[in-house]
């Protein structure tokens, strides 16, 4: 039951993009086509899960016993940056088709604040355990995917719409994101 609540909270109520504003850059940047947004979501799911497992273990078994919690930010960002590079190399060797689908998105993920954000937020979960942290990361990645894919499908339709001159480009995208966020606001109180 507790796990279902985490899932619903992360996907709908506290959606990582639309309510917590993490990962806005890929949200606005790679959302012009549904196919690219699916690829990006896959890459985020993959990296977010592995990054959270690694940083959680590192925090629990290295930083806390050594009393070095203040080095959290610096360690996590280094681990994530290295991890992304490593995942890229491994996927390239092991599964070329997967690399073709996710490859171009992987370098972009290093500066995706959603990955670092979720890794840090996972430390603050109530009665935290590794399993819970992993589940939290996966739920957030699904939330990210949902927001990104819905947003991309709306943007595909917008290309045919007649938009006022001053609103073209960034402003209309932000406005659409605002309305989408408003829709998600309706889920408040669900959990």
């Amino acid at each position, binding site marked *: 039951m507790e796990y279902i609540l985490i899932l619903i909270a992360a996907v709908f109520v506290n959606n990582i993009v639309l309510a917590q*504003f993490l990962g*806005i850059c890929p949200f606005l940047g790679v959302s012009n086509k549904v196919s690219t947004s699916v690829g990006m979501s896959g890459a985020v799911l993959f990296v977010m899960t592995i990054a959270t497992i690694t940083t959680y273990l590192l925090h629990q078994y290295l930083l806390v016993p050594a009393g070095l919690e203040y080095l959290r930010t610096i360690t996590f*960002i280094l681990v994530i940056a290295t991890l992304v590079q490593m995942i890229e190399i491994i996927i390239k060797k092991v599964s070329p088709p997967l690399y073709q689908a996710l490859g171009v998105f992987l370098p972009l993920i290093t*500066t995706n604040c959603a990955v670092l954000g979720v890794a840090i937020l996972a430390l603050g979960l109530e009665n935290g355990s590794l399993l819970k942290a992993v589940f939290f990361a996966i739920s957030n990645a699904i939330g990210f995917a949902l927001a990104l894919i819905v947003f991309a499908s709306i943007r595909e339709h917008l290309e045919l719409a007649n938009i006022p001159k001053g609103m073209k480009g960034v402003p209309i995208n*932000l406005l659409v994101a605002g309305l989408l966020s408003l829709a998600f606001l309706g889920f408040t109180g669900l959990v």
Partner: protein
Amino acid sequence: MANIISQKEIFLKGIVKENPIFVMLLGMCPTLGVTSSAFNGLGMGIATLFVLLMSNIVVSLVKSQIPSKVRIPAFIIIIASFVTIVEMILEAYIPALYEQLGIFIPLIVVNCLILGRAEAFASKNKLTDAVVDALGMGLGFVIALTVLGAVREILGNGSIFDFKFVSENATTFILFILPPGAFIALAYLTVLFNRINIKNI
């Protein structure tokens, strides 16, 4: 003389022509996430300005020592160190702001604005230019965040910098201090900024 003019240009381009928020769209997460009031926007802006300034200085000083293959990880370590310093200072001296900004303080590390300036400007230019560039870009960021925070606070709460100018039970657009308001307010501010920019050119 030429030097002074070009430094003035470097400074101004960060505020108007290449404004990090309204034109370049860098560092959007903290921009949208913390600007529910003018004070939070200003605090986040100044914290980012400090990290940007310090990292530009250090990157510009050590640029010839860093092999180009590992420059990005090296820049990230420099930035992360200053973010940790900011985190500790805020926690010790302004705990209220530290609580409010929360997760967005460690996330200054992944603010593309800072890494972007280190890579695109500080690693190629001399110290004084790098300082001017950081001040210009940082100030552009502070102004954008404060304006966005002020607009949201005025519309959503009827106050500015916690100074309330409507009566206690007056109706305000609460929407603007909620998440959707961030997107909507920024959308219209960008339209406004583009209009002003086009008129100037």
